């Protein structure tokens, strides 16, 4: 395996809060990498830095060996890094299918957008295929705002996939959805991974992370605490400490230790 995406010694402060403190993360090509940690440990900020939404104070982000630290989000996406958001963000007042088409252009010139129609036949086919893949093709013509929370999660996954990114960053794909759908999303991720897609996943559902990921990084107070296979991470006392110090949630400690 070779390294596809990495953050090296990234730091970022918001006012007096050190959200990221010399944090390093490596994502191997073809892997499913998990990123866990207590609330407020900087996982989402790291996502924002890696996808160009937030500029780090120091440190670098590299993708396929190129420095992308200060690239804008649209550039990052065009290079092949797709992401979803913790609170799903879809375009509520246009149709599900139109949501998909927004993402199909990748690095097309904006002037080209003026002279062409919304989609070509091949883009339309690809969009429908991916909607079918996540199981919401029958909703294609509905306004996206009428979808349920779970369906929005699926749509968000689908429209990231339609641009055919090399690596996909998922921010809590299993958050707030029911067990059946969690398993379904896990299955989709596995299928895509077998087809060659790389994943970086932030998730609080330990069972989901531990069963899916090849490698897990635990974050604590803005830096990477431990990196290893799920079983290594599970048995590492530092991880338990991090969760113990960070929250009183006994269930999570229980889950890490035995899940």
């Amino acid at each position: 395996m070779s390294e596809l995406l990495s953050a090296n010694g990234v730091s970022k402060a918001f006012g007096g809060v050190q959200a990221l403190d010399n944090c390093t993360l490596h994502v191997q090509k073809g892997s499913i990498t998990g990123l866990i940690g207590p609330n407020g440990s900087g996982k989402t900020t790291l996502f924002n830095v890696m996808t160009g939404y937030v500029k780090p104070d120091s440190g670098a982000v590299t993708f396929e060996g190129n420095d992308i630290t200060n690239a804008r989000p649209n550039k990052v996406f065009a290079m092949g890094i797709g992401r979803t958001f913790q609170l799903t963000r879809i375009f509520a007042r246009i149709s599900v299918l139109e949501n998909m088409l927004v993402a199909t252009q990748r690095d097309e010139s904006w002037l080209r957008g003026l002279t062409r129609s919304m989609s070509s036949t091949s883009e339309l086919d690809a969009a429908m295929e991916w909607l079918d893949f996540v199981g919401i093709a029958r909703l294609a013509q509905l306004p996206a705002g009428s979808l349920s929370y779970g369906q929005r999660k699926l749509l968000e996954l689908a429209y990231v996939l339609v641009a055919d990114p090399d690596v996909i960053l998922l921010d809590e794909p299993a958050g707030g959805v029911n067990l059946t759908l969690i398993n379904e999303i896990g299955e989709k991720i596995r299928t895509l991974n077998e087809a060659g897609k790389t994943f970086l996943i932030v998730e609080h559902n330990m069972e989901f992370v531990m069963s899916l990921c090849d490698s897990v990084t635990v974050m604590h107070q803005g830096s990477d605490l431990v990196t290893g296979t799920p079983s290594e991470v599970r048995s590492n006392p530092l991880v338990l400490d991090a969760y113990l110090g960070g929250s009183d949630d006994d269930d999570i400690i229980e889950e890490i230790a035995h899940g």
Partner: protein
Amino acid sequence: MLRLRNLWWVAALAVALLVPQILTNPAYRNIAVLTLIFTACTTSWNMFSGYSGYVALGAGAFYGTGAYTMALLSKHLNVPGNGNMFWLVPVGGLAAVLVAIPVGLIALRVRRHTFVVITIAIFFVFQLSAINANFTGGTGGFTLPYIPWMIQDYQLPFYYVALAILVFAIALSASVRRSRFGLQLLAIRDDEDRALGLGVKVFPVKLTGFAMSAFTIGMCGALYAMLQGQIYPQFVFDPIFDISIALMAFFGGFGTLLGPIIGGLVLESSQQYLTVTYSNGSLYLILFGVLFLLVVLFMPQGIVVFTREWWAKRQDRLASTGEVASVQGGNS
């Protein structure tokens, strides 16, 4: 083959072409010209603000720029007072685009309320400049070359040029709505940061839309100046204009293709009619106040969306009679 929807457009155009044959009174023809001008402006305004959600309240800056371009160029190029002046109408549009680009570069960096306030502020910079600059003639106004046409048919050429501008504005708005570019504007309206993260080059897209909408508004300003023959800074750089075209779009249906057309046709014609009939320049404000209250209370999304939803509900009700309605459920 023409689809039914296209037939409606063709029919509407046919009616529009016939209107001046029925309205022979110059006063009414004048109303018709102004109505077309305002409808073109609100359609064009909506093409950017309605699609992108960036409510700009400074369109008067482009209207005034177009008007002064027509006035200054016709005078300094010694254009004789005849139909050749119409060639300056698109030049007025281009001047508005040239103004819109730097304005957009500043204003489009901020969003929502801040954007609204900035556009208003920039508008007043333009108004004050026109009032105080020497080359505009200041508050004394600016007289354009006299056009020696018969009073009876004076408005006729203006009517057809205004109609052509309106058709252009509608065609542009419709083709933008169907293009990838239009889709990007709609995506920006719903969630700009998410659109950016899906590869949409949001800033160039916004700026292009902003400048495109300025083009038609500038043309309308130029045509208006030529129609009036005399312009004043406070009437072509008019804050009421800014608000009017926005209200017309909201009245008809903000962000829809049809809404601003209906809003412009209904509101501007009734405003002008009331003003002419009762020779009272502010009577329409009372009517407008009541109308807007009604719209805000009962159909906040505008007439077009309200009607569409009412119709859809009616169809649903008719279709589902007898069925057991259990739309709820769904596991996710």
